[in-house]
């Protein structure tokens, strides 16, 4: 049993119709009881909720402040490789793209880590293209212990793995797995993923189940906003989140809301998600789920990121590079996508403090959950 079975019973066309036929009265009812209520989630994501966005923002900000305080967790992505065995028409790492390919060796990894540590980070997101043979379990098992020695929180955003593989990585210190479905609309998914294992929509969709069963502390969900109707994709992500929370009550969850960005050989977004829409999504998910971590990457522009801070965000990256080895040797030819906020960590923190937020570098100690630990 996985979300795949549950997903098969969701009637997409009915949801789409319901989304676009919501009325103001539906939204007002949704605002009375939004938490954990899928019907409310639908109404708040609908176009009919747009006149209520200020009210939603006020409530979202207050709920976030109460649950998370003034804390914003800071993390940084570390790109291990840009090798990829998939063809995805929106991604700079696609296998047919003519760009220099690189897999960090141990020395290069150590150099990247040293730079990231010198900037104060204690939470790291390891990212790679999806290439099972050259950047697969053997490689992950080699590098994870090296990274874990230096960081108290270790997340990964790599190709979907088997449950047994996740178990092995948890033993080596893996805390979180980000696995973005990109789009929950199978036909659109098929159109954008034209080669490689990533074409298997159902295998990807069942990945969070495998991650949760393996005992990973936190699972990150996400859709790539711009591939298809963002309201419907967000709603289906909400269904996914709801299913996972009900089945894996010990697991924590986060979402990421990446808007499609320009990249080498990449497509233009089919659907443009406005800043207003992004705010609507953030506030809706906060009202739906008070304990959810919501991440904001450097894909967004500095002024927008600063303004989004109070609305529900709990985690941010700052000073990111989206290329393997990029902290040591910046080289835009290797990028996965262009970033929009290129401020230094210090600049981001200064702005954060000016707005009354507390940047948190250390908020976890996975040493507690190492299975080999003796009582």
């Amino acid at each position: 049993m996985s979300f795949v079975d549950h997903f098969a019973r969701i009637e997409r066309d009915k949801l789409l119709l319901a989304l676009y036929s919501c009325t103001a009265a539906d939204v007002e009812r949704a605002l009375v009881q939004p938490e954990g209520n899928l019907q409310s989630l639908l109404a708040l994501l609908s176009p009919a909720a747009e006149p209520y966005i200020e009210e939603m923002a006020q409530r979202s900000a207050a709920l976030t402040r109460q649950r998370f305080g003034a804390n914003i967790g800071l993390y940084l992505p570390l790109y291990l490789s840009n090798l990829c065995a998939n063809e995805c028409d929106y991604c700079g790492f696609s296998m047919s793209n003519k760009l220099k390919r690189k897999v960090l060796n141990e020395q290069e990894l150590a150099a990247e880590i040293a730079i990231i540590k010198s900037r104060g980070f204690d939470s790291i997101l390891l990212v790679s293209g999806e290439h099972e043979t050259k950047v697969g379990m053997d490689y992950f098992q080699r590098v994870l212990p090296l990274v874990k020695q230096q960081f108290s929180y270790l997340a990964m955003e790599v190709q979907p793995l088997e449950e047994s593989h996740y178990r092995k990585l948890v033993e080596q210190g893996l805390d979180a797995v980000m696995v973005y479905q990109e789009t929950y609309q199978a036909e659109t998914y098929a159109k954008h993923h034209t080669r490689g294992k990533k074409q298997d929509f159902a295998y990807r969709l069942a990945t969070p189940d495998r991650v949760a069963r393996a005992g990973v502390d936190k699972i990150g969900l996400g859709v790539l906003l711009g591939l298809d109707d963002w309201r419907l994709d967000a709603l289906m992500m909400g269904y996914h989140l709801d299913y996972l929370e009900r089945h894996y009550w010990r697991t924590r969850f986060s979402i990421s809301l990446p808007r499609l960005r320009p990249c080498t050989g990449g497509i233009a977004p089919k659907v443009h998600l406005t800043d207003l829409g992004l705010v609507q999504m953030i506030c809706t998910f906060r009202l739906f789920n008070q304990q959810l971590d919501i991440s904001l990457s450097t894909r967004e522009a500095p002024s927008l990121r600063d303004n989004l801070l109070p609305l529900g965000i709990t985690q941010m990256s700052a000073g990111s590079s989206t290329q393997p080895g990029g902290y040591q040797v910046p080289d835009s030819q290797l990028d996965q996508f262009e970033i929009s906020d290129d401020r230094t960590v210090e600049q981001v923190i200064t702005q954060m403090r000016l707005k009354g937020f507390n940047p948190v570098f250390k908020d976890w100690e996975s040493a507690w959950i190492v299975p080999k630990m003796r009582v």
Partner: protein
Amino acid sequence: MLTVAGVEFESRLFTGTGKFSSSQLMLEAINASKSQLVTVSMKRIDLKTGADDLLTPLRQAGVRLLPNTSGARNAKEAIFAAELAREMLGTQWIKLEIHPDPKYLMPDAVETLTAAQILCERGFIVMPYVHADPVLCRRLEDVGCAAVMPLASPIGTNQGLVTEPFIKMIIEQARVPVVIDAGIGAPSHAAHAMELGADAVLVNTAIASSASPIEMALCFRDAVNCGRRAFEAGLGRVQTQAVHTSPLTGFLQQ
């Protein structure tokens, strides 16, 4: 004066360190509250360097630290966190928190009792965060806990004393201090808990998330003092009907 494990506290308001917008504001609020026991989450402390933006100002303020095991999801993790706290902070005191459920952060009674027993045997001063369960509290006392910390309502919710009937039972039966922890959202909640006879309250979210944390800390300080004084003065009995000022049987006294 409140005594926990042989240590005397003038203040019956315990405070937390999370959710403030800066360490400076946290320190000023704690100072205003006059709190002498402050919880600090072990998961926030940098184990590799020992340096931390929370610890230094707290040590300078001269308050007693109560490290907590927040983040632990079972007894094993909590025990390890307690051992880390003892080693790093040089204190035997530990606020035992085990909540495997990230949604409501409900404490796990089974794991908490297991961990409490082991930690007490190892010489820790254990203050467990628990649901307002009178039987569990007695069992925690039996294994040697220095205090019990039942919740008023779920962590951070500001709902107040939702568990009041059970809190009353716990207070009535307690042989160790009862500290009402979690859910106290207003000074009036704190005052009410103290009027019921709680030995102390622990407040974090209501102060840290306030628009003016220092002012709110002052309010809680006063509310806790007032509530305690009222308890000690002896509150009148609550009745549903009026009591005649000229009793019908007054003549029997004449």
